[in-house]
Each structure stands twice: as C-alpha cells, then as structure tokens.
C-alpha cells in the first residue's frame, strides 16, 4: 500500500518507511515472525495472534480512508507557552523536539475524507507527540473539526490516543475538555453523528471528555482505556490490578464501549454506521461494504 497516494494535498511527512528497516517483524505479543509486507497488508495486526501494533497517524489514515480522499484541515494552530511553565526542560523546547520528530505542530491531525465513499471529518491524535497530551492546540483543532463537520453536515470521527491533559498548560489544558464538548454538543444538536475510536492508550482528560461522549464508541482490541492510569490506581489502592483491567474487552463487558473492532474490519463497520446514523443528512445512498 503506497501511503503517499492517500494524501491529495498538504501531504504530511511520511514515517512509515522508517518503521520498516527490516523484512521481517517479530510480534511483541506472540513472538511469531511475519513478513513485513504481509503485516502491512493486515494493517499491522499480527496475523498469528491478532495483536494490534500501534500505528502512526499516517498509517491510520491509509488504513481507514479511501485512497486520495484525505484533505488536511488542521495545522495552522501552534502551541505557545502562556504559563511560562517552569520545568526541567522548557515547554517551548519540548514542543520543538516533538514537532521535529513528528512533522506537525501538535499532537493532532484533522481533515476531511471518505470511508467507502462516505464523506466525514476526521480528527486523529498522535500519541508520539508528547503522549498525545491535550493542550490548547489539540482542544482548538478538535473543536474546529467538530465545527467543520457541522458546516459540511457530515459525521465526525475522532481517533483517540492520549495520556491525558498537557500539564504544561495546566488549567488551560483542563478547559479543553469543556471546550471540545461544547462543540460536540452543537454537532449532536444538529443530528450529526459523532464516532470515537479508542486506541492504545487513551486515558485521563481525553477519556473524561470527548472520547467517551460519542454516539458510538469503538475500541481497538487490547487497548488501554481509562480515567486514571494503572500506576496511579496501584499507588492509591496498594494492590495489584486484575488481569485485563482497563483493556477494551474489560470495558465492553462493563458496558462502557459499543464495539471492540478489529482494525481490519473498521472500514466496513464505520461505513455501516455512517449509513445507519447519518441518513438524516445523507444526500444519495451508498451501500456495498467492501473492505
């Protein structure tokens, strides 16, 4: 799959090639070796054990969207250091490092695209950018993505991956939880569906705001999802956490997510849901769910 064919404009820097220096990949979960081309064809899901490897934002777009369909809308908003946060490393320096590493201004990429011909707006969090933490920029971009979906009258999908709020923006970061929610409320009031896809890991302020107020909450198998991180909980209760605690399947059982869905089936499933819930605003019917 040629990732560069997906992006029509504003092509983000591609990192996929760098991830693949060797021909074979050993599964961190079951230790079975897979030919890397095959692994990519499986959307980086281990064909042997089903383990979902973490993927980049660009890979996510390639795996989810129709080819050439993605048009980036985010990227104009950049982080500042309003609190002049005192830390072992300055916040602007931290930011600069992450920007150089990822090629984007902050931990988020948004745009419009299509899934099996169904138009939608997409926001994707980048865990490799400071742990996908939410500061003013992430909040603003998510908000704008919701506003764009409202303007276009199309559904919104947010792919979540975050360690939570961005400490270096303190209460400004906290406020993004309410800000993004306000925008999503407006989208919902217009009868436009909002889907979230929780990927490994999604915790903290993101889980406690936009990630979990979606009309339909999807989760990738085995993803860590929770409010408090496992370490914090362990420190609080001073005992070991049960096996599978805070994983997607655990949350499904506890009534918190709608579907735990294999990455290879996400396109079809999303197309169905877009048809079912988006019918109010849909112009022409598209059916046929090919992968």
């Amino acid at each position: 799959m040629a990732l560069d064919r997906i992006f029509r404009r504003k092509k983000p820097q591609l990192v996929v090639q760098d991830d693949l220096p060797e021909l074979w990949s050993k599964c961190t979960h079951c230790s079975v070796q897979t030919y890397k081309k095959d692994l990519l064809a499986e959307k980086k899901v281990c064909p042997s054990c089903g383990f979902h490897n973490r993927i980049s934002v660009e890979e996510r777009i390639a795996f989810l969207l129709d080819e050439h369909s993605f048009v980036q809308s985010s990227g104009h908003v950049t982080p500042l250091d309003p609190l002049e946060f005192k830390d072992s490393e300055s916040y602007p320096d931290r930011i600069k490092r992450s920007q150089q590493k990822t090629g984007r201004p902050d931990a988020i990429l948004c745009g419009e695209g299509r899934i099996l011909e169904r138009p939608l707006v997409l926001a994707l969090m980048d865990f490799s950018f400071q742990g996908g933490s939410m500061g003013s920029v992430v909040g603003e971009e998510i908000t704008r993505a919701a506003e764009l979906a409202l303007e276009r009258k199309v559904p919104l999908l947010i792919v979540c991956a975050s360690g939570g709020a961005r400490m270096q923006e303190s209460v400004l970061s906290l406020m993004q939880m309410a800000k993004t929610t306000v925008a999503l409320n407006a989208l919902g009031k217009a009868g436009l569906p909002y889907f979230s896809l929780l990927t490994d890991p999604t915790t903290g302020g993101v889980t406690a705001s936009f990630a979990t107020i979606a009309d339909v909450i999807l989760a990738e198998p085995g993803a860590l999802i929770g409010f408090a991180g496992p370490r914090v909980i362990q420190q609080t209760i001073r005992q070991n956490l049960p096996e599978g605690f805070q994983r997607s399947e655990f949350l499904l059982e506890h009534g918190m997510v709608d579907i735990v869905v294999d990455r290879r089936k996400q396109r079809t499933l999303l197309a169905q849901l877009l048809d079912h819930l988006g019918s109010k605003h849909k112009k022409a019917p598209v059916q046929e769910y090919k992968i």
Partner: protein
Amino acid sequence: MSENVRSLESALHALEKTMRDTGADLVQEISNLKHKLEGLRSSEDAKLSRWARVQLARTPSRPTGLDYVERAFSDFVELSGDRCYGNDQALIGGPATLEGRPVMLLVQQKGRDTKGNIKRNFGMSHPEGYRKAMRLMDMAQKFGLPVIAIIDTPGAYPGIAAEERGQAWAIAESIAKMASLTVPTLSIVIGEGGSGGALAIGVGNRVMIMQNAWYSVISPESCAAILFHDAKEAPRAAESLRLTGQDLLELGIVEEVIPEPLGGAHLDLDTTVANFKEAVLRHLEELSQLSGEEVLEQRSRRFRNLGVFGEN
C-alpha cells in the same frame, strides 16, 4: 500566619479585655491596632506563595460545601442517588432557596472530621456522584432552576471500582450535560479544584474561585512526581501550575476571585459566606436577564474561547 500577626492579635485582645473590664477609653488605641493588623495581614497575604494557598485550601478547619449551603441558602433538601448504582457522599445536591429564589445546588463535600472524611471519601467522588449530579441537572432544567455548583475536591477517585463503573464516562457526560443546560449555571471553587473531577460540575456561565482556593489540571504533588520525580517538589510544581485565583483571573479562566478574610476563610466564616453570597447573587441576577437560548449561547461562547495558541 506569622509571629508578627499573632503577637499583634494578642495585644489587641488584651486591650479589648482591659477596656471591657476597666472601662478605660482605649477606643483610639484599639482602632489603631486593628488597622495595623489588617495592613500586616494584607501584606502577608500578597506575599503568600502558591503552595501556601494550596495548604490554606486544605486546612482541615476550612469551611466545606455544607458550611456555605447552611449559611447562604435556605431549605436545602438533599436528594440522593444516581438511580443506577449508589449514592455518592462526596458529591451531594438538591434544591434550596437563595433569598427566596429556588436554585439547584451541587456540592462537593469533604468531611468536617476524620469520620466525615471517611464517609465523604475525602471529597473524591465515584461515578455515582457525577451521575447524581446529572440527574439533578436534568431536574434543574425541567423546573427552571439555576444550578449552583460548589467545587471542592482533590479529584475524582482513582480506584478499581471507579474505573469499572466508568469514572471517565461519568465525568465526560456530566461536562456535556452541564454544557447543554439552558438554565444559568454558576461554579464556585471553594477549596480544591482538582482536575476533571472538579470540571465535571465546573461548566458555569460564570466560574468563580475563593481567594485561597486552587484549580488545576493536576495536583502539585502529582505534577512534581512526574516533572521532578519527587512529590516533595510540590511547592515548585504549584508555582509552575499557576493555580491560584489570581492566576486564573489573569488567564481568563474565572470571572471573579471572591475575597476571603485575611488569614483565610476559616478565620471568619460569616464574612466568607457573606462575600460568597454577594457574588453568587450578583451573577445570578445578571444571568436571570438572559433567555434560555442566550444562557446556552453565552456559556458555549465562554468555553469555546478558552485556550492560548498561535495561528499562522
């Protein structure tokens, strides 16, 4: 409180006693001393570090939510339960009147003593607390009552059961519910405003904070543990986090810092509550001029505009 303040206080009390006991005319001397004491306290307050305020906010004798409720409001009727699983004691609420005007109170409640703190889980709610809050918000919406949310929590409880029952979900839904109301909402941080657990009922048309309260995305201790790998560096973290009322006012996060008596709210409960009540009444009065749609619109705009970033 410094030695200076304390010795001046002793002197003042001695003078007052002498006047009462002997009838000597010490009015002028007493007045002078009071003035001096006030000045000293005021200058000491201005010098208070952020960490000192965090400690003030945690003073065991600091007024809790119910202290405000009992003094500023009448006929509070506590309503219980989330109609789903349980009745959280760290987040309570129900209707009451404020100068004859019915309101819906949401109150994060710490214990007033050890036994109370165990019952109240030190002010840290489980999901049931937020679900109860949502139920009461629905009730406020149905009957047209403004929502007054009194915030005082170190944070939502981070435990196994809380995660199992969807702590993050409950907080997120509570934020979304409060953001959607067409009745006015006021949030006042009276002690600790700990992260998402506080924001869950913090979506006010107006947000206020008591002078010695704090509100932050993370506690100074946790922040220090992450940044400096040592929770003892909390004072440094507190400075970094800019979490005091004055900070929040400058950042545009709160509309108003409600003054406390010099030395802290616990030293003069009547004055504290009077200041609180005056501010709440004033904002409620202003908001009551708006239609339901305007209330929603104003609140939405307020939160839409929070955040600091560059644009190119």
